[in-house]
């Protein structure tokens, strides 16, 4: 069934339990799907845009209120919608990093954090992870000292992931922020895997900038996200335009330079806003989601040879497994080779794991029910037993 010429109707989330590592938290709520139907047209939120002609001032639909609510939800002072977390990184780096400035990232920083530094012509310095795949305050302090010693400059910014994309591990942001602040280094906390999934309190984390992803964790259409900051930094990162056309003398009101004026002018902002009441409720239920993922991991660990590479017990639903000594041994002789696992899961109505993966792979169980957690856990064991692997349940 097509939804346009040559465009197949996507029915993944209607037909399968979707464990895709990056898709789970961005699955739309029914209210967001309704918003998509009503606000799909290009500039659909601009019908009632009046002076000062800026997205965060529009009151119908209630975007102005939504911006205020978002800031309060994150316990920050000011928030703006951005077209994806990456544009939040870009805005902050552009405002704070000057050519040649050292910038701290971590061993688990997303590539777009690096690109934002590159675009601002900064120099990237990574804080290494420890053997448990955690970024520690000691490692951060050591790296700051080293960078200051070797470059003669204090880093202009420190990026830190609250939960990283590689292991789904939680890093001690609050302690890391304290270290950075001792050197007067502003902190950008990347909450792409946390904001909209779990309770995030920007001030408690000590974040000067908090960046979230709408399409990754706030049940919103892509590209969407949020950049929140404190009153101290708001004027810097949300500075308004001062440029003037030399021939026409035109000026551009209160458009914000780093935002490139208005950001999400249609379905993305309204989709995000429609999901927001659900998001506010679901962050309070994160503990149940953590129980479910641990149930799945516990089942996987009963399969002889299976290891977990993420911190365990799990504190987040994004999880990295190593089945080199279990499922991959089957793949060596199976007629479907490495595809046997994802194929067997698909036959059971489960999808989202990278096809062909039997060594190191990730899944994200966010959004499932207790019954679905049991079903997934049982499915992994059933597949393992069918292929002759020993399970100790």
């Amino acid at each position, binding site marked *: 069934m097509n939804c346009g010429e040559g465009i197949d109707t996507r029915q993944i989330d*209607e*037909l399968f339990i*979707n464990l895709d590592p990056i898709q789970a938290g961005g*699955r739309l709520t029914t209210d967001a799907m*309704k918003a998509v139907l009503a606000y799909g047209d290009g500039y659909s939120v601009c019908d009632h845009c009046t002076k000062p002609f800026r997205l965060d001032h529009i009151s119908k639909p209630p975007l102005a209120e939504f911006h205020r609510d978002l800031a309060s939800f994150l316990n920050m002072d000011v928030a703006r919608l951005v077209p994806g977390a990456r544009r939040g990184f870009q805005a902050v780096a552009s405002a704070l990093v000057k050519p040649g400035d050292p910038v701290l990232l971590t061993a688990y920083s997303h590539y777009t954090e690096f690109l934002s530094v590159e675009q601002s012509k900064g120099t990237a310095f990574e804080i290494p992870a420890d053997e448990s795949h955690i970024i520690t305050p000691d490692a951060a302090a050591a790296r700051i000292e080293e960078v200051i010693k070797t470059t003669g400059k204090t880093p202009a910014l420190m990026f830190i992931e609250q939960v990283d994309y590689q292991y789904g591990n939680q890093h001690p942001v609050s302690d890391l922020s304290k270290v950075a602040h001792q050197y007067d280094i502003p902190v950008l906390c990347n909450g792409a895997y946390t904001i909209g999934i779990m309770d995030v309190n920007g001030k408690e984390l000590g974040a000067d900038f908090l960046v979230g992803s709408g399409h990754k964790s706030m049940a919103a259409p892509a590209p969407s996200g949020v950049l929140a900051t404190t009153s101290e930094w708001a004027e810097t990162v949300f500075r308004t335009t001062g440029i003037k056309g030399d021939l026409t003398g035109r000026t551009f009101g209160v458009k914000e330079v780093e935002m490139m004026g208005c950001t999400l002018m249609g379905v993305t902002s309204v989709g995000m806003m429609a999901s927001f009441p659900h998001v506010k409720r679901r962050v309070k239920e994160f503990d149940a989601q953590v129980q479910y993922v641990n149930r799945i991991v516990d089942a996987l660990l009963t399969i002889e040879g299976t290891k977990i590479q993420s911190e365990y017990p799990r504190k987040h639903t994004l999880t990295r497994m190593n089945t080199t000594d279990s499922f991959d041994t089957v793949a060596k002789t199976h007629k479907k080779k490495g595809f046997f696992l994802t194929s067997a899961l698909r036959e059971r*109505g*489960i999808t989202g794991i990278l096809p062909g993966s039997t060594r190191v792979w990730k899944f994200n169980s966010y959004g499932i029910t207790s019954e679905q957690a049991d079903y997934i856990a049982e499915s992994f064991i059933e597949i393992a037993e069918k292929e002759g692997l020993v399970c100790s349940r």
Partner: protein
Amino acid sequence: MSKRSVDAVFQGLYLLTDIRGMLRDTVPYHQLSVEQKKEAEKILGKLEKQIAILKEELLA
């Protein structure tokens, strides 16, 4: 302009979206609980009303 028919189109789409949400919630086998079946019945009943409105507005 038939505001009534436009409203019926959106109302119908929203009701179908509620069914879509139900399908998503119950993957992979879509085995609805007793409560979900009752809810689905209610939604489908409302949907039929919207379709009746559209027939009345557009085809009469």
